[in-house]
Structure formats: structure tokens, C-alpha cells
């Protein structure tokens, strides 16, 4: 056994190249790390600019072919890039599920419009927003707030939905809409890729714990040309879901090591009654607990990577890793408060905020991410399913419990799949789709 990450000389060489490039190109405002959840219009402009620079290098889509605007990097090189961005607390630039969404777009890559768009997304020249996760995890027709009515060759969209993505206004929106009001759920939806500047689209000021996470967008009689429809009428949920078929722990888990480091640093540098907090026996126990959870998360990620790289069957593991990361984040937020007291709540705007307020952000984000593991469906349900402890028969017919692994890029990065292939691939993915 060997738990060490070993890098090849080539990787280390590439690391140097990445370091140099990042040092040269990261704007000043982002040098201490920054998160889109701390939205600030001025800084966001810098982000967009840096995002375009990343895109030009192909580093927004590091592992995709250069011909499609990607970086053409191997997985080994991609890891180095991710690590370096993570070190600078900027990995979120590559964190959006647009990776997965692009997979869903791939079947249409031969359509000129889609192919161009994919390249544009990869290179960062357009911003794509997509439906807020909660909505697409469960098919809840009642929770889809947007309706699409056919009107000649066009569709008319109206209603309101939650979206996620970077920036303050998208170039394109991936929209999941109700198309056939009275038909069966799996035939009732349509997916669209719609330019953000169409008439009747309004991004509403969103007021949530994590401003960059979920944006409300309203559609008022927005006329959408038919070519914006993805696939066929009725494929909407299937396609949208396909974009999320990856196991909950994606290739890019949210690492918390930095938050833990900031907390440990605070505990070393701050005192209570003359003693560093880290030497306070009770706080010490809590800090070590946080350290242990962080290390377990790392070990589980290693295990998952090792299983994937050696072609072993992943069953419950990815969901387990995600579950423990979510819980560890919540626990870290508790421990931060125990150790730091009120300091844990100071945000980056306060001059006395430790580590630029990163732990205040962690307070909010751990709550936001926790919502992805609801009591209704979530990581625990996925694990139970993998362990053979599914829902009672009569409920499981109504509940989609996704168990199939993500289909790899349909057709892969080089192939050009027939659309029919992909559809059959996708439709075999879950019990709900078969119903």
C-alpha cells in the first residue's frame, strides 16, 4: 500500500508552469482567494477577466480537446492545475457543473449552433446558468415554475425559476420548463438553451445565504426560437438529469483543508487566559476532531480515485465520501464557533476578520451545501440503495434512486456519437426513466 501522491517529473514541470502563469495573471483582488458567493460587482469584473484568461489557455475545460476550446491535458496534468488553483482558493472557477452539462450537450455537438456554444463555454467567452440543483434532483413537476407554450415555430416561456452559475447575468440559460401540462411527468418537460438577452428575461436580486449560488430568473412571455429546444419536446427532464448523472462526489469535490488550516492558525495565534487556544484541552480535542474528519475525507477521496483509476466497481463509495464531506463541513462550522467564538462570524469586509473571513463564508456555505443532502433524497439514500436497502416497493416506484454510474462522455472526447446512441444510454440510467 502506498498513500502518497507521487508526481512525475513531467507533472512537476507542469506545476511550475502553472504557478508562474497564475502568479503573473491572477488579478490583485483575487490574490487572497475569493468566492463568487461573496458577490461584489467590482470584483466580479476582475473575475470575468481572469476567467477569460483561463479560458484562452483552455484551462476552464482542462481535459477536453483543444479543438473544442479545452486544454487537452491528461488527467494527471489536470490534477496539478486543480491543486494549484485550490492552493490559491480559486478552484471554484472550475467547480461549476457546466462540465456535466457539456456532456449533455455533446450529442448535439454536430449541430452547428451547439458546437460553437460548447467551445464558447469552454473558453469562458459565454456564461451559462443552469437549473438549481434541488430542482433537477427530483422530478417534481410542481416545483418547475416555468412553462413553455408552443406558438408556431417558437416557444413562449413564462414563470420563474432558480438558477445557478457564475456572474450576475448569464449569456445562456439552460432552462427546464413544463411543456405538456397534462401528460405523464417524464413527458411533460422540455429543455432549452436560451440566450440571456432575450426579451422578457429578468434576473432578480437574489437574497440568499450564498448570493452566488442560486439566482431567481423570471420569464415574461419570452419568445424562444425552436432551435433553442434541446432534443425533443418531452426530453427536458431526461436531458437535464443526464447532466447530473454523475455520482454526488464529482471529480472536483469541495476541499476544506484550507478552512481547517485557517482555523488551526487562529487557534495557534490567539490566546485565552494567556494560553494559545490550541493548548486549551477542550478546544484541542475539537480541533483534532476537525483534523481527523478532514483527513478521513482525504483518505476517502484517495480511495475513490484509486478505485476509479484501477477500474474497480464503485458502489456506495462516492456517495459516502460526499456524505462525510457534507457532515464534516457542518461539524467544522460548529467547531469554528467553539474555538473562535464571535470571530467565526466576521466576514471579509471586517478588518478584524481572521483569514479574510473565510470561516464566516464556511458557516454559510456549509448550510447551503447541507441542503443538497435532504432527508427526502440524498447521499444517505444513495448509500442505502447501493447496500441493497432500498425504499419499500410501493414508494420506490415513485422515487428515482439513481444508481447507475455516470455514462462517460457519450462518445467520448473524440467520437461523434449518433444521437440515438445517447438517448438509449441515458434512458437506461434509472428506474424512473423506465416507468
Amino acid at each position, binding site marked *: 500500500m502506498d498513500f502518497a501522491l507521487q508526481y512525475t517529473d513531467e507533472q512537476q514541470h507542469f506545476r511550475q508552469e502553472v504557478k508562474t502563469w497564475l502568479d503573473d495573471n491572477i488579478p490583485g483582488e483575487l490574490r487572497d482567494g475569493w468566492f463568487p458567493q461573496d458577490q461584489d460587482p467590482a470584483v466580479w469584473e476582475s473575475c470575468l477577466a481572469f476567467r477569460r484568461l483561463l479560458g484562452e489557455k483552455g484551462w476552464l475545460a482542462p481535459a477536453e480537446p483543444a479543438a473544442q476550446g479545452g486544454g487537452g491535458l491528461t488527467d494527471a496534468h489536470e490534477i496539478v492545475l486543480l491543486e494549484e488553483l485550490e492552493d490559491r482558493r480559486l478552484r471554484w472557477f472550475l467547480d461549476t457543473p457546466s462540465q456535466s452539462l457539456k456532456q449533455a450537450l455533446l450529442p448535439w455537438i454536430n449541430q452547428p449552433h451547439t458546437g460553437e456554444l460548447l467551445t464558447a463555454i469552454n473558453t469562458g467567452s459565454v456564461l451559462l446558468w443552469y437549473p*438549481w440543483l434541488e430542482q433537477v434532483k427530483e422530478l417534481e413537476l410542481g416545483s418547475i415554475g416555468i412553462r413553455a407554450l408552443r406558438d408556431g415555430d417558437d416557444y413562449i416561456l413564462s414563470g420563474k425559476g432558480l438558477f445557478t452559475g457564475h456572474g450576475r447575468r448569464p449569456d445562456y440559460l439552460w432552462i427546464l420548463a413544463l411543456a405538456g401540462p397534462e401528460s405523464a411527468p417524464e413527458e411533460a418537460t422540455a429543455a432549452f438553451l436560451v440566450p440571456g438577452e432575450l426579451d422578457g428575461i429578468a434576473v432578480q436580486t437574489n*437574497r440568499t445565504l450564498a448570493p452566488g449560488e442560486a439566482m431567481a430568473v423570471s420569464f415574461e412571455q419570452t419568445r424562444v426560437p425552436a432551435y433553442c429546444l434541446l432534443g425533443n419536446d418531452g426530453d427536458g427532464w431526461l436531458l437535464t438529469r443526464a447532466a447530473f448523472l454523475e455520482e454526488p462526489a464529482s471529480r472536483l469535490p469541495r476541499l476544506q483543508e484550507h478552512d481547517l488550516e485557517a482555523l488551526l492558525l487562529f487557534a495557534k495565534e490567539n490566546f485565552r487566559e494567556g494560553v494559545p487556544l490550541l493548548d486549551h484541552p477542550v*478546544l484541542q480535542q475539537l480541533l483534532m476532531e476537525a483534523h481527523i474528519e478532514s483527513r478521513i475525507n482525504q483518505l476517502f477521496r484517495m480511495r475513490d480515485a484509486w478505485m476509479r483509476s484501477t477500474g474497480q466497481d464503485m458502489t456506495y463509495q462516492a456517495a459516502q465520501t460526499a456524505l462525510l464531506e457534507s457532515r464534516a463541513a457542518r461539524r467544522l462550522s460548529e467547531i469554528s*464557533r*467553539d474555538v473562535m467564538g*464571535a470571530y467565526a462570524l466576521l466576514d471579509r469586509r471586517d478588518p*478584524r476578520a481572521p483569514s479574510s473571513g473565510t470561516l464566516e463564508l464556511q458557516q454559510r456555505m456549509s448550510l447551503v451545501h447541507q441542503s443538497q443532502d435532504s*432527508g*427526502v433524497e440524498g447521499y444517505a439514500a444513495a448509500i442505502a440503495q447501493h447496500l441493497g436497502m432500498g425504499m419499500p416497493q410501493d414508494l420506490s416506484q415513485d422515487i428515482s434512486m439513481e444508481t447507475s454510474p455516470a455514462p462517460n462522455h457519450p462518445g467520448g472526447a473524440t467520437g461523434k456519437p449518433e444521437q440515438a446512441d445517447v438517448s438509449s444510454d441515458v434512458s437506461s440510467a434509472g428506474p424512473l426513466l423506465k416507468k
Partner: protein
Amino acid sequence: MDLGLNEIQTMLQNLAREFMETEMPTARVLEIDDSPSGFAVEVWEKMSEIGWPGMVIPEQYGGLGSSFTDLGVVYEVMGYYACSSPHLSSAVLASQAILEAGNDSQKQALLPGIASGQQIFAFAYTEPEYAWGPGSVQLQATRQNGGFTLNGTKLFIPDANIADQILVVARTASGSNPEDGLTLFVVPREASGVSVRVQSGWLGPKVCEVNFDGVQVADSEVVGAPGGAWPAVEKAFDRATAVLSLYMAGGTQRVFEMARDYSQTRIAFGVPIGTFQRVQDHVIEALNQADSAKWSAYEALTQLDDGSPGAAVAVSLAKAVASDGFALACDASHHVHAGIGTDLEYGLTQFTKRARNLQHYLGDAIFHKARMARLMVT
């Protein structure tokens, strides 16, 4: 044994509910939190009209002379509505410290203003080395010019930005026992050398950094004997902590009810999500925390009212329960609500941020458990 409210308390509870229902709808709480001062002056004036600032001030000083349990009834309702006000700072912490430490002329001079709500006091205790034990007070007050000069920083001080006066706990002497050498000073917020900055964060009600840069205080503004303030401060802390615990219990009850109600109405897969055991467990967690906080806080209040020797332990127990419980219940309620719960306008997050802020205020669970052990052994 009788765990019911008496007639007066029932009236107080009804009045408080009506008041809050009118004055503190969710949107208003958000609006106050978002305002630069965090202070709703008209709400404070209405509270003052019905006498709340004077509740635990004796009638001879212009107050109502109510019991702490009476005040707890009001605090439970305030917590249920996430009401922000300088009541705890001014009408409990400051009033009780002055009541315990001050001489009669100081009480005559200061308490009626507090009781009427005309004068608002902040209570400045914590410092950059954030902690609640007496040893953490290091702000220096040195004898000078026939009075004292204050130099140093207070941090995380509620209501300092809107207070008329700041009651400052400062150190006039250092010795082996950190409880010795603490002194209470009344300092006008507008005094020369005082600067107040509202801190930024996920804090709910505002807290402030207060800097004292060579602030001159006359001897007449020293409340009680120099160096001997700790017993009065500790008594004020116990009383404030007990009512605060009930405020937190009220908030905990509210986030439980929100979770329960949402679980009954939100449909997933054709059934209310409350039929899922994992969802039930989150709701039950919130309920258990709410009831635990409520009963332990009421017990502490009755012991304070009775002057029971076990009151301090009961107070620390109640705050330990409320500190952890309110935050846990909020987490549980967020779990039930998922995405919608993170929407600021939905109304859950104002409780969450209060829970996390108040978790530490007047000492967190670790602090109070250690205090309990100390008090129980001796």
C-alpha cells in the same frame, strides 16, 4: 410544583404576542437587520410606552418591579419573533449592574432613564481576546486628574452604536485573582476619545468595536467601589443570561415550528416530506432542543426569583442548553427546508444567524459547563 404561567404572566404573554405580531413580521426583521444601525427606534418607543425597559427595575427607580420570570415570558416571545432591541444591554445588563453596584444617588440618577427607555445603555465587556471570564477584561483604567483615564478596545459589543451611554467594565488593578480590580464606568457614547464601529459579518443584530483612546471619566461616573465590580457584574450576567436563554428558547421553538409546518406542506414524490423518517428526525431534534431550552431557562428564572443558592448553576445549565440547542435546531430546520431555507426572505436565516451569534454571547456552552463544574464542586 406548578409549571403554569400565573395570571399576570399570561397577560404579559398575550400582550407580547400581539405586539410582536404587529411590529415584527419577517420582512420587518430583515429590514432592521439590513439597516445601518440595526435599530428600530419606533419599536423601542412602543416597547417603552408599555414599560418593558423598566420591568426588572424596582418601582422606586421608575420601574415595574416585575419578576425575572415575568421578563422571561416576554423574552420568550421576543425570541420567537427574532425581535432586535437594546433591551438586554440596557434594561437588563446595565440596569442590574447599576442596581447591584451603584449607590443610591447613582441609581436615582440612572435607573429612571433606563426604565423609561429614554436612555439606552450599552454594556461593554468583551475585548479582542474574546472570552467571558473576568480575566479577559484587560481594558485599562488608570487614575489620572482626579478621575480615571480609559485606554483600550472593547469588541463585539451589542448596541454601542445607538446607545446614549456605555457601561464599561475596565481593569483598575491587576492581582492574582482576576475577579479583583474590575470597575464599572458610565461613559457617554459621544465622550471625547470614544469611537464606535459597527462590525461586519453574519451577525444579525449589530455588534461593535468600541475604542477608548484616553477617555476621561470623573469619579462620579464610577459605579460602585473601584476594583469591586465583579460580584455586581456576575449577578447582572446571571439575570441577563437567564432571560437570554428564554429568548433563544423562543427562537428554537419558532424554527421547530417552521420545520414542522414545512414538512407537512411540502410535497415530494406525492407525499408530504414529513412522512420521511430522516425529515422527522430533524424536526424532532428541533422540538427536543426547544423544549429543553424552555424548561431549563424557566427553572433558572424561578431560582433567580427565589434567590435560590443553586440559581447560578441553573442559569449556566440553561445557557449551555440554549447555546448549543438553538444552533442545532437551526441546522436541523435548514436540513428540512433545504434550498428554500437559505432564502433570506423566507425567514429562517434570521434565526440561524441569531443562534450563531447568541451562542457565544454571555458565554458559550463550554464556558458554562466549566462554570457549572466549578460551582457544583465548591
